[in-house]
């Protein structure tokens, strides 16, 4: 099981609580996690990554285990504590504003 924590705007949009639990088959990567997330919540398509290129939207970041994974390749395997559900994957809106 993978635990994903969405930013508040996307929680409202997907009508979910603080944490989303996803069942994943195969290796846990950014791509496979987002594929499953978007399959379960189609309204999130286009809000985290581009519809066509699947590139991460520029002002979103992926954090886990106190590390910034945003610039990792989408097919890189996520840290074991994320893959095993011990630690969540945070999807975070980049800080902006005053």
């Amino acid at each position, binding site marked *: 099981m993978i635990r994903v924590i969405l930013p508040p*705007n*996307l929680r409202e949009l997907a009508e979910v609580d603080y944490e989303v639990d996803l069942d994943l088959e195969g290796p846990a990567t950014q791509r496979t996690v987002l594929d499953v997330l978007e399959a379960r919540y189609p*309204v999130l398509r286009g*809000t985290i990554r581009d*519809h066509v290129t699947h590139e991460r939207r520029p002002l*979103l970041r992926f954090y886990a285990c106190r590390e910034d994974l945003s610039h990792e390749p989408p097919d890189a395997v996520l840290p074991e504590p994320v893959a095993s559900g011990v630690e969540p994957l945070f999807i975070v809106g980049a800080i902006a504003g005053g």
Partner: protein
Amino acid sequence: MSRVRALVGTRKGAFVLTSDGKREAWDVSGPHFAGWEIYHLKGSPADPDRLYASQSSGWFGQLIQRSDDGGATWRPMGNEFTYDGVPGTHQWYDGTPHPWEFKRVWHLEPSLADPDTVYAGVEDAALFRTTDGGQTWHELSGLRGHGSGPNWSPGAGGMCLHTILQDPANPDRLSIAISAAGAFRSADAGQTWQPINRGLKSEYIPDPDAEVGHCVHRIALHPSRPDTLFMQKHWDVMRSDDAGENWHEISGDLPSDFGFPIDVHAHEPDTVYVVPITSDREHFPPEGKLRVYRSRTGGNEWEALTKGLPQQDCYVNVLRDAMAVDALDPCGVYFGTTGGQVYASADGGDSWNAIVRDLPGVMSVEVQLLP
């Protein structure tokens, strides 16, 4: 008695304002989509309870929302706006080629006849259409493929398609405007397009009389006279009486001919409204006085409408989509400001009241007449 519904898009959400035909007391519902930019929302002329809203964010991109009950409840619709074919390039601010990139939907124009058909004007400039109530969107790529596309360039607000006009007498005729490419018209329901900018003069582009490149801010028409178009350009207020083939200036005695919105009285095709601001670098009213200007002669002669509007220390702007009229008699006129006020006049502009005063900056105002 008829009811009136005002749809207000702001920097931080949408608001739905309702009143009876007197237009004195207003109920305010919202914010809907709190925290999101709502560039525009508009109801279907064929089904007033069918509303569409453009919801966007720099972080999370574009969403389209639809309501089937007049704004009480909403549901997200399709949000994939993919350019047709290889997008190519347009000019960047410095004149270099820049890839076409979808950023947001500026304007949603529901079909006059079919609630499931809606046109969307987007940044980077292109026209999309849905025919299934917003589930899927397809580009009418003949516009971007017109041939002049590689020469289009963005205005300060981005390269946006912000105006979509339908001819009530001819559903195949569409007119659109792009900042800063100019105005274009289609005679075949959006398949092919021609620029309609003859007579526009823009000193801020290399060739002031160029076929494209003009920063058109807004175009309006009266449904009973669709060949007459009124335009607020970056500078200059213009008029065409041949569906855009030729334009002439009607700025006349305005204190400034710079501004964003322009609209036409619901019952008087020669009564036009603008909100002048000082200049391209000072986006606020001249002398700090918020004045709507009305021409009853189709332009050139303008009168200041000030009753109920702040006449000192007012430095707000009125954006291009933030003015609307209702079809009651007398005609109601509405506009929203970047300071969060929505002003309404129930007497054609003679007097004004702030029907709501402290919203986030207003980006769009539309008004519906309800049975």
